[in-house]
């Protein structure tokens, strides 16, 4: 108990020392610190406010919300529209990217990722326009990773070549399965053969920089069937694979079929076996298991995704995109969680009328920033390095928070976790059960930083206030 009581007093120092505990005293304010979202009259200051010493960098995500058809397992923010005014969407993506880059005063964009939706349905001209806008508003190194998600049904060689010419230098192909009946169950538009062609075409144009997505744990999928898919994928793939366990998201057609009994629910133990098989096979064939669902060889890690897991700053552009960055352009120094307006038509109207369609802004307090770092960082094989932790918590080291007797120590002793000179990370076994470790670690972190200073947010209140900025428009 003594240790727990000691923390809050120390935190005062910590909070003051943290980036983001600024003159506005927001870190000390109890409860949610929600800034008003910009109103129609507000335009960012024309001149950048000189501020932070180190030049700011960020990754940039661009959301293309449109699909030709909705997949049976997808609950993401996607729309199937008959006639699309692509020029208008393009203009809005460009305008919002410019506005947010200006607001963030990011000096250099480290990577760009076009996700969706189905961004390969966008014209290469749209991709080019966005990249030009980025390069115009911040430094975008020639070597910076620029990824585009592509569906095999919209990944002809000519189309892919167009994207390459537009500046894309990495492709992520949504193969999902190499079995036609599985693809039908998933509601995909393509066949296994088309997926193969797409990957081969992509490898030809983006050698060493083509990734493929695969799903496992489909209803009714057997251990053997999965082993076969994996083998087929290994024969086809380049140097990066993302293996996602199918999540039966509420509200999707597939989840309804499983709940209704039309399709069997995959048993927990089978899913664990499939995951274990896959990571063993991939590691044996030279892949590095660098994140829960991601594998790379020859150093072909996705730098964009690593930015999320290292809790770097990232800017989200497009309907429903999420971002985490500091609004230096407004004189801010705290990391904000930002979400753009979900619905494309509304989002466009907002971008057209005041430069961006930010729906909610929530300032993250020091504890919340560390919570996100912990949750994301432990997904990687490198874990949370001392350096990365120190960036968010200069006062209290990983050792201070997790080295004392407590949950983390117990999890280390049970072989799930390691804390050493490299930082805090999961063991091979621990990575598979990370979601069972996190509540313990977050609880320990909350206690260590003193819950009294940062009371839990009022859930409903937070949402209501966050949204209110756009009411009445």
């Amino acid at each position: 108990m003594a240790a727990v009581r000691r923390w809050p007093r120390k935190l005062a120092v910590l909070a003051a020392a943290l980036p983001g505990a600024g003159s506005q005293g927001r870190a000390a304010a109890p409860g949610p610190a929600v800034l008003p979202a910009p109103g129609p009259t507000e335009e960012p200051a024309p001149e950048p406010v000189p501020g932070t010493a180190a030049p700011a960098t960020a990754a940039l995500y661009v959301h293309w919300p449109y699909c030709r058809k909705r997949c049976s397992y997808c609950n993401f923010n996607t729309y199937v529209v008959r006639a699309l005014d692509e020029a208008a969407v393009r203009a809005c993506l460009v305008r919002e990217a410019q506005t947010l880059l200006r607001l963030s005063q990011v000096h250099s964009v480290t990577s760009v990722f076009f996700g969706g939706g189905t961004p390969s349905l966008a014209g290469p001209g749209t991709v080019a326009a966005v990249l030009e806008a980025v390069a115009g508003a911040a430094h975008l190194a020639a070597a910076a990773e620029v990824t585009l998600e592509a569906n095999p049904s919209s990944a002809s060689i000519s189309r892919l070549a167009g994207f390459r010419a537009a500046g894309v230098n990495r492709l992520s192909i949504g193969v999902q399965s190499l079995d036609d009946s599985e693809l039908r169950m998933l509601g995909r538009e393509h066949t296994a053969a088309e997926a193969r062609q797409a990957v081969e075409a992509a490898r030809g144009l983006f050698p060493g920089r083509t990734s493929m997505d695969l799903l496992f744990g489909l209803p009714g999928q057997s251990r053997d069937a999965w082993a076969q898919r994996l083998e087929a994928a290994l024969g086809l793939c380049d140097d990066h694979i993302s293996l996602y366990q199918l999540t039966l998201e509420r509200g999707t057609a597939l989840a309804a079929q499983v709940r209704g009994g039309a399709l069997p629910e995959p048993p927990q133990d089978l899913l664990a076996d499939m995951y274990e098989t896959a990571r063993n096979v991939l590691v044996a064939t030279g892949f590095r298991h660098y994140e829960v669902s991601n594998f790379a060889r020859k150093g072909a890690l996705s730098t964009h995704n690593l930015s999320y897991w290292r809790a770097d700053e990232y800017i989200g552009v497009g309907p429903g995109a999420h971002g985490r960055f500091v609004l230096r352009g407004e004189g801010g120094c705290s990391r904000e969680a930002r979400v753009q307006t979900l619905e494309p038509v509304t989002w466009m109207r907002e971008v057209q009328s005041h430069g961006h369609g930010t729906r909610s802004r929530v300032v993250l307090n020091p504890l919340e920033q560390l919570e996100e770092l912990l949750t994301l960082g432990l997904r990687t094989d490198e874990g949370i390095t001392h350096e990365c932790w120190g960036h968010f918590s200069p006062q209290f080291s990983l050792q201070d928070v997790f080295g004392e007797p407590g949950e983390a120590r117990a999890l280390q002793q049970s072989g799930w976790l390691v804390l050493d000179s490299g930082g805090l990370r999961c063991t091979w076994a621990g990575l598979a059960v990370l979601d069972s470790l996190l509540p313990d670690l977050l609880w320990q972190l909350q206690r260590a930083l003193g819950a009294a200073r940062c009371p839990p947010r009022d859930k409903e209140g937070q949402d209501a206030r966050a949204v209110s900025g756009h009411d009445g428009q």
Partner: protein
Amino acid sequence: MSTYPVESIRNFSIIAHVDHGKSTLADRLLEITGTISKTDRNKQVLDKLQVERERGITVKAQSASLFYNHEGINYLLNLIDTPGHVDFSYEVSRSLSACQGVILVVDANEGIQAQTVANFYLAFEAQLSIIPVINKIDLKNADPERVEKQIEKLFDIPRDDCIRISAKQGTNVEKVLQKVIEKIPPPQCNSADPLKALVFDSTFDHYRGVIANIALFGGEIAKGQKIVSAHTKKRYEVNEVGILTPNEQPTHKLYAGQVGYLIAGMKEVTEAQIGDTLFLYKQPVEPLPGFKSAKPMVFAGMYPIDQTEYNNLKSALERLTLNDSSVTVHRDSSLALGAGWRLGFLGLLHMEVFNQRLEQEYNMSVILTAPTVPYKAVLSSAKLIKEYGKDEITIINPAQFPDKLSVSEYLEPTVLGTIVTPHEYIGKIITLCQDRRAVQKDMLYIDENRVMLKYLFPLNEIVVDFYDALKSLSSGYASFDYEDAGYQSADLIKMDILVNGNPVEELATVIHKDKAYAAGKLLCERLKETIPRQLFEIAIQAAIGKKIIARETLKAYRKNVVAKCYGGDITRRMKLLKRQAEGKRLMRKIGNVEVPRDAFIRVLKRETDK
């Protein structure tokens, strides 16, 4: 009130099975006699509580004095309402002891039901005049003839004595009043005797204190007199007496044979216990027979859903028990559920009604644990006998269950149950009763297709879901009622639940040996469903002493990690994880196993899927 001599007084009750029309008949009687004005709004006038109107039962009896002229004579008819359920059979018997006769109401469509039988015998044993009334003859499916035959066969009352009425439409209700005057004798008592008043009900008023309903078996009572309670021996000065019409209406005096109320500075309802006798100070009388203190037969734990609600719930309980002295309240606490109480009720319906009143009248929602019954143990160990100061103890909490070695006999409470059912369900009902360790005492066809069964049940076998099971296997047609039948010897054991070898105190139960295996298995299965998987395997076992009788294994999580955080959207995910982290605070640790409070609630909570 002195204008009503004993000869022109009739004291009577209406008794009936639930929903057979007791309260509607009372409404009509009140209207005919001009006690209340006749409007469409007179629906269950005597049922004041929301729960009574909703459930169609009377929980808190109300009484009314009716004035009625018959053949030129002014009569004072005291309608003494009775609670409508066997849980309150003691109250019913006390109310009946203030009467000389009853109106027995039977539904012309449903016929005799279990509670009709129980009520009839209460009245019959009290040697009251019985006026059989067949109600609801206006209904399409009414078959009064069949009901008359049932009454004749079962109660030995000539079918010609039955009055066919429709209380709803007022048909023949006047005739009922005339019968009351003709068939029910006036009370046998004398105003010249010393005061002897029976307390047959009491209520609490925040401004005036306890209002006791009384029936005078002798003497008279007036403001200013000094009276004594035979039970508590406490002395009071009478502040007010009066009659109920049905609201309190003060009078100068009450005389022998009359029924009314009294206010005498009593602060708590426990001071005016039902069945108690009041007499004048320095003029003691022989107390009226039959007084018993309320004896709880069903116990359940009550906990606030959120511990911050503890004080609010405490004050609600205090206020509600002001009006219901039959509920016993003992503070209790559980490692899983926090601070709460162990409440004793007269029976299951009493428990439900109490809980419903807490919710409706005090806006409280609570965790109510599955009900248990009070067992007894006859001690053989000299040490324990010395410790307890007696050789027979009552066991309410399984933690107090004495070991077999120091006990010569365990006892369990029993009830005599009456079931009335259409005959096509007999087979299923007999099987159900046998499963519940019941012993058949009687079986009688009350007409060509209706059967009355009597069974001696261990009380614990009917407290949880017996009534629901009976209703569902008979498509709702079987009715059930029961009365206290004392204690019987039973093969009781204490069953522990172990999680990874560690006993879980709040899940220990006292149970009959024959039921332990099935109950142990069920508990283990339910726990397995409610305890979240953890990083190691968990054994959930039921044990009697050192012997394991059931086991479920909750496998360790082998994979538990979300596959993807789409496009940096981790807000929702953080919310979930943080809620889980906060939940750690509410976890009950059993050994190294974390059991969420919800798991206990789901396992311990009474099922309310009615």
